[in-house]
């Protein structure tokens, strides 16, 4: 049985499925969650609650997995969450690409002193 893992092409293993892969020591440093991170959490909880049922845990998970291996490693936890939530909302037609794009541009323009970071594609 133990031959399976070795002989299976790595391509069959999806990037988020990391149990047993080599990795460095556990870094125990922690950060307090920023308000925007808690806002992501709150948005998800509301969308998933019994009153709305607009997104399931598995839709969130799938959306994160589909960000791809690069994004998965380069983005922070709540960046992945909001990216997945947003994609799900676009797919379901709850929000449109056009209105989201316009609103994000407004938010960035309204940020104090226009210090919006260079947005990454």
């Amino acid at each position: 049985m133990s031959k399976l893992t070795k002989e299976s092409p790595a391509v069959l293993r999806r990037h988020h499925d990391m149990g047993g892969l080599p990795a460095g020591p556990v870094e125990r440093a922690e950060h307090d969650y920023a308000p925007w991170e808690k806002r992501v959490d709150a948005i998800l909880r509301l969308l998933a609650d019994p009153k709305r049922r607009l997104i399931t845990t598995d839709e969130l998970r799938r959306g994160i997995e589909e960000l791809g291996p690069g994004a998965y490693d380069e983005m922070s936890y709540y960046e992945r969450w909001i990216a997945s939530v947003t994609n799900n909302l676009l797919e379901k037609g709850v929000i449109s690409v056009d209105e989201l794009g316009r609103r994000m541009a407004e938010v960035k323009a309204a940020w104090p002193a226009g210090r919006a970071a260079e947005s990454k594609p």
Partner: protein
Amino acid sequence: MSPRFGVGAAVQVRAAFPPGHVRTPFFVRGKSGRVTEILGPYRNPEELAYGRSGEPALPLYRVIFETASLWDDYQGAAKDTTLVDIYENWLDPVETRT
């Protein structure tokens, strides 16, 4: 859907590698373990993930593995164990001879 496996049943996790959203970790696929508990019917995550109902629900099992059987070079104790929650569509029966 009545559960196919009872508590104590020897089971083997399917060595399957579908491309979509699944909740069976790679490291237990193809491995053999034993059912310790039937957690109940839960909606199918492989359907829920794509905006569908997840019905019919699937029996979800707790499956215990000897950790040393999961890795070629396990450095811990022989008695160490690993428990994973696995949906019924991922489990096959194992013939046991005693």
